[in-house]
């Protein structure tokens, strides 16, 4: 079957797009949904995915060239199958609907009022605005009859959070700690006083939390920090172990003046947060453990092995693939960003050292499972059912050991449900935070 790939429409004002890079070579096989070509418009960079299985038979717009919406980009078909380029060019182009963040018919008009002076807004918009402390009259209304729709409120919230985004550095124990924060007073939204601090795991960074910051920031202040040796934080060299991470995290809290926080840690980061929660309970208002280490010996670090031999793009990709149930989650920009971070001086050494100290012979040497019952704070355990690194069973056991703890399982996610099931994760986390 012959399938034409056309330049999609990602926004109502979009007229054309430029090819940044073809992710599949001509003559190579593709599966439906696979990343095919990265394209750039005036507003966004986005990836077109293959609309069908087959072989990418022809590329019609090469890298660097620009084509209008609806133009023929490429042809997918079975190997050797004949196709008629002219016919495909002339056929009705498929136009994708607007992507996330793009909005049709933005008029910049303030919301309309009805005969009795009330802002025209759907009940759902009204409720959402109220929950977040937004004044409807200040919002743009793009719903029917100039009303404020739920989308309008959501966009206003997202814009408020985006405005509050800060990136910076703190120093703890002489090490520079890079962080990003969002939410809180700076948004002008209703916000809770106790912030959330997000802690990544081995070979990770604040990039891990990209899909979560905005959602959490809409409700309360949230910090994501790069552990020493990771991301843009300092790489002091020497031994990178759980203790170092724990001390650094505490130092970060102090440096930011955060007396009580809710810690949310992933993988090794979970282990770190758990340790801190046990050592400094007075600083804790709640704990979230996501596919966390420190709950037992089992771990499969096979996905890290190539990386431990040396930082290459392939090794990075292998490492990333091991984190997800669905390999298609790993896209080019994710690999690029991770590879870049791991290529920084001292980063690789940090990863090797962390693995050596926490998982020396392919098992986790420190387990805090016995001490779980000491926890007296609200705990949420989040886990991907298809986690190939640390099994779900660990999470379930931990859940039964902690009085009053909550468990959330993402059925179709691997080691990183906060990415792979981001929307559900955010909903669940926010629900936990609200309680």
């Amino acid at each position: 079957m012959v399938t034409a790939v056309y330049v999609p429409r990602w926004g109502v004002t979009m007229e054309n797009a430029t090819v940044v890079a073809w992710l599949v070579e001509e003559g190579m096989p593709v599966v439906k949904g696979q990343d095919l070509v990265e394209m750039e418009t005036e507003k966004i960079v986005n990836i077109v995915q293959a609309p069908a299985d087959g072989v990418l038979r022809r590329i019609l717009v090469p890298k660097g060239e620009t084509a209008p919406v609806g133009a023929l980009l490429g042809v997918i078909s079975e190997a050797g199958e004949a196709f008629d380029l002219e016919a495909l060019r002339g056929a009705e182009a498929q136009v994708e609907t607007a992507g996330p963040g793009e909005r049709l018919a933005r008029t910049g008009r303030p919301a309309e009022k009805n005969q009795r002076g009330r802002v025209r807004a759907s009940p759902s918009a009204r409720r959402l605005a109220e929950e977040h402390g937004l004044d409807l009259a200040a919002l743009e209304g793009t719903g029917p009859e100039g009303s404020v729709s739920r989308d309008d409120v959501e966009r206003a919230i997202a814009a408020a959070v985006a405005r509050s985004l800060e990136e910076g550095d703190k120093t703890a124990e002489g090490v520079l700690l890079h962080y990003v924060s969002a939410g809180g007073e700076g948004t002008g939204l209703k916000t809770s006083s106790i912030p959330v601090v997000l802690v990544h795991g081995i070979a990770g960074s604040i990039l891990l939390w990209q899909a979560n910051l905005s959602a959490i920031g809409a409700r309360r202040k949230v910090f994501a920090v790069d552990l020493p040796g990771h991301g843009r934080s300092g790489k002091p060299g020497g031994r990178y172990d759980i203790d170092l991470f724990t001390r650094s995290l505490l130092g970060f809290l102090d440096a930011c003046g955060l007396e009580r926080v809710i810690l949310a840690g992933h993988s090794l980061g979970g282990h770190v947060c758990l340790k801190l929660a046990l050592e400094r309970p007075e600083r804790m208002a709640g704990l979230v453990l996501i596919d966390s280490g420190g709950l037992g010996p089992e771990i499969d670090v096979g996905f890290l092995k190539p990386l431990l031999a040396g930082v290459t793009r392939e090794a990075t990709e292998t490492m990333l693939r091991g984190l997800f149930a669905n390999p298609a989650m790993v896209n080019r920009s994710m690999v690029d960003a991770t590879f870049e971070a791991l290529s920084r001086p001292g980063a690789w050494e940090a990863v090797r050292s962390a693995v050596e100290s926490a998982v020396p012979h392919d098992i986790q040497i420190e387990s805090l499972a016995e001490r779980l019952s000491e926890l007296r704070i609200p705990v949420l355990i989040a886990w991907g059912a298809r986690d190939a690194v640390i099994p779900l069973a660990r999470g379930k056991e931990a859940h039964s050991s902690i009085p009053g703890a909550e468990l959330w399982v993402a059925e179709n996610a691997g080691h990183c449900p906060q990415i792979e099931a981001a929307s559900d994760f955010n909903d669940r986390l926010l629900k936990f935070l609200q309680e």
Partner: protein
Amino acid sequence: MSRKILYVQAIGEAFAEEMARDERVFVMGIDVTRAVFGLTAGLVDRFGKERIRNTPICESGIVGTALGAALTGMRPCAEIMFSDFAYVAMDQIATQVGSWRYMTGGQYKAPMVIYTLDGGGMGLGYNHSGCTEAAFQGSPGLTVVAASDAYTAKGLLKAAIRSDDPVLFFGHKALLGQPGEVPDEDYILPLTKARIVREGGDVTVVAHHLMLHHALGVAATLEKEGVSVEVIDPVCISPLDRETILASVRKTGRLVTVEEGRRTGGVGAEISAVVSEEAFFDLDAPVKRVGAPPIPVPGSAFLEQSCYLPGPEDIRKAITSIL
């Protein structure tokens, strides 16, 4: 100048006046000479048995015959004694009567009236107590009206008889003995215009027949409690006078519909849909519908009163639930 007459007399006067005015007008139905409910009382003495014509029991046959006569030069008024029995004539009323003009591309018209009485509350049970106007909403070509007092009964019925279009006229048994003022002079009322019976600002209530009177009572009580209720008599059940209802909802932001018929697919259901489509952003609360439950009318008068018929309490509860 005006007089006070009973609702049933208002209907009788309408027939008498229109039959005197136009010899093509005649009445046909079961026992119309004897007038079981008094609607056509005394008319046979004045106009004779040809024009006050008793028929066999056959609602569908009665309506069909009236249609045939209307298509060919007469102006019949066909009686269906209990509105429950209108369903026996469903094809004739809902399809044939209203569609004939259109189906013939305007070659024919059907200037006829079908008149009937709604209403329970007398312990008459499942098949003698119904309110069936809702079933005829949206029937093409048909105008469905409900008369809620003597004044509208006379004015609407006269207008219906004079109209060149077919009209389905619903009276109500419980109102037959209700007195009301009617003008001395000849008058007709517009068939498709709702009327605002009581002005108010906090909530709109649309109600007809006996429920209109209940709603007015509730409005008076609520007034003393600081709630201002606007009460509208829809008059025309189909097609609805949207403008009047929408203008009121835009003013008050709240709406309660009230009918004695069942809630499901009732008159209130259509009003609610129209308001939701056209005044969604003027509503401060959901539209509430008061109507009977989806059960047959119980034969027991006690059950009928306590469990079936909507009443002032139901209206009041619906209003307060959205304040």
